[in-house]
């Protein structure tokens, strides 16, 4: 009622007089935002929106008819733009046939692992005074990664732990950093002077928090899937993860650990799979899950002050573009 009555009032041309007409004609110079009255402006906006929707629907129908009419000669459907499509090309993307990369990988710190000279042995520990959640997470992580041991950190300095670990033949050290009772950081250090990667860890889910989980992970060596590690940096990080697990996965166990990199976030999942047929596989999630984001990669073992950093995430420089990813 207010609209009909107010139609007589001033303001610029409002278009149709009767409320809710079939086809509203908005003159081209009219803009909904010029109406001062909020109620009317809202009403006008809704009508304008409805009209837009109708036009859009009509345009779609027309396009579809054209497409059908052309039949085979129709132009191919446009590929929608996704962030992955639009990703800024990273010059350090690894070409599978690149010799230089292959040579580098044959001579870097993981070469002994990939040549089967060393067997991975992992030490998992936390920061000082871990809370229950972190402790439980460490235990579950130890069940997921074979040949791993959890040790309670009693205020010991990492620099002193590392030589001892090397003496006892550990190949990797994982430190889970805790803040306010939740684990939020992960330092992964390959031991005999290997690179150290520092990650920020988020959305940690313990086994009991995962819905529809299966039974406990068994002792079988799981397979490893590394997805989407394309650049040089991604490659080295991927190799770091691969070197945590022993070489020969026991396919009997039908367990698979996945590190999936998407837009610089590495998602870790642990599943049990079963092949229902040649083309169908069922997976069931067991084991903890978490996501990592790489913060820095350092050349030697853990040394935050004097270490030589290969890569640090610098927010100002690296976060400028939404389409640029580093892993």
């Amino acid at each position, binding site marked *: 009622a207010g609209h009909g009555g107010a139609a007589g009032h001033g303001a610029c041309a409002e278009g149709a007089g009767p409320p809710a007409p079939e086809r509203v004609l908005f003159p081209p110079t009219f803009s909904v935002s010029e109406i001062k009255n909020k109620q009317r402006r809202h009403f006008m906006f809704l009508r304008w929106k409805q009209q837009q929707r109708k036009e859009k629907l009509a345009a779609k129908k027309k396009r579809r008819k054209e497409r059908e009419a052309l039949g085979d000669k129709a132009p191919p459907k446009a590929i929608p733009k*996704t*962030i*992955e499509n639009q990703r800024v090309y990273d010059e350090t993307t690894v070409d599978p046939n690149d010799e230089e990369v292959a040579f580098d990988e044959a001579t870097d710190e993981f070469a002994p692992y990939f040549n089967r000279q060393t067997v991975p042995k992992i030490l998992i520990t936390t920061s*000082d005074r871990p809370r229950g959640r972190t402790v439980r997470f460490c235990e579950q992580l130890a069940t997921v990664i074979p040949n791993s041991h959890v040790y309670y950190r009693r*205020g010991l*300095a990492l620099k002193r732990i590392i030589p001892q670990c090397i003496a006892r033949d550990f190949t990797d050290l994982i430190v889970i950093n805790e803040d306010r009772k939740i684990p939020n950081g992960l330092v992964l250090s390959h031991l005999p002077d290997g690179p150290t990667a520092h990650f920020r860890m*988020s*959305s940690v889910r313990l086994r009991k928090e995962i819905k529809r989980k299966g*039974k406990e992970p*068994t002792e079988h060596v799981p*397979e490893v*899937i590394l*997805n989407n590690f394309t650049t040089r940096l991604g490659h080295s990080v991927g190799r770091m993860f691969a070197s945590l697990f022993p070489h020969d996965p026991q*396919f*009997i*166990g*039908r367990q*698979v650990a*996945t590190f*999936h990199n*998407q*837009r*610089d*976030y590495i*998602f870790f*999942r642990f*599943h049990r*799979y*079963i*092949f*229902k*047929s*040649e*083309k*169908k*596989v069922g*997976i069931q999630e067991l084991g903890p899950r978490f*996501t990592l*984001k790489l913060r820095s990669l350092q050349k030697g073992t853990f040394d935050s002050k004097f270490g030589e950093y290969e890569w640090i995430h610098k*927010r100002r420089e690296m976060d400028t573009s939404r389409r640029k990813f580093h892993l």
Partner: protein
Amino acid sequence: SPQVVWSMLGNRQFCSYKMTTKTQNFCRNEYNLTGLCNRSSCPLANSQYATIREEKGRCYLYMKTIERAAFPRRLWERVLLNKNYEKALEQIDENLIYWPRFIRHKCKQRFTKITQYLIRIRKLTLKRQRKLVPLRRKIERRERRREEKALVAAQLDNAIEKELLERLKQDTYGDIYNFPIHAFDKALQQQDAESESESDAEREEEEDEDVDKREFVEAEDSDLSDFEDMDKLETSSEEEQEQEEEVEKKASLSKSKGKTPLKGPARRKRPYIEIEYEEETEPTTKTKAA
């Protein structure tokens, strides 16, 4: 005179250094020796006073005498104390010789306390320091949102399934899974048709059991290559064996929830089928009993 000062500040009027609490009065003056608001420890109300203060890890003895009461700039005389604890105590003694007992005693006590906390500071700095990095809320929010979107975009389950199927195609699993390609399907279907009619009733029961007893079936697989082990396997696993038989026969129909593997060994088992058939009669007897 100090008495007048105290009668004003201490009791009646306002002293800006005084802090009152329910049980005690404190004095916030930096030159105060004990920290309490007393007649004997007020630096304003005593014309002869001494304190110990530390600056950047070094302790100083501050002294105030009546002679300099008129010169505020030169009022407090400062003496640097020795780093050695005993020598510093001697220094205090020689500087405050003939001074009231109270001040001397309190000075030494204060000095002891200060050195103790300086030692503790030095020890703590040697241990690992926890560096507190402030979070920036906007950035945290942004990261969380991006992580969620990345999770949705990742479609993890699909990716994992695709990867596993790829590996199956490229034969990384070797002989464990020998899925019938269509040519085999038909050949097997005929044979399955025979066995199906026999084991119709038992199938439905066993399908459910298959899901739970998956792990037993896994163990089976490792042993299937050794047929001696198959025979050795006790009656407890006989049922699983039979179920496995049915499972394998059902493989081409791909109805089973259990594993569908091992056409190779299954075929090798053909000569042994007669043995199996004998065992198969057992469940029928059980069903009869039930």
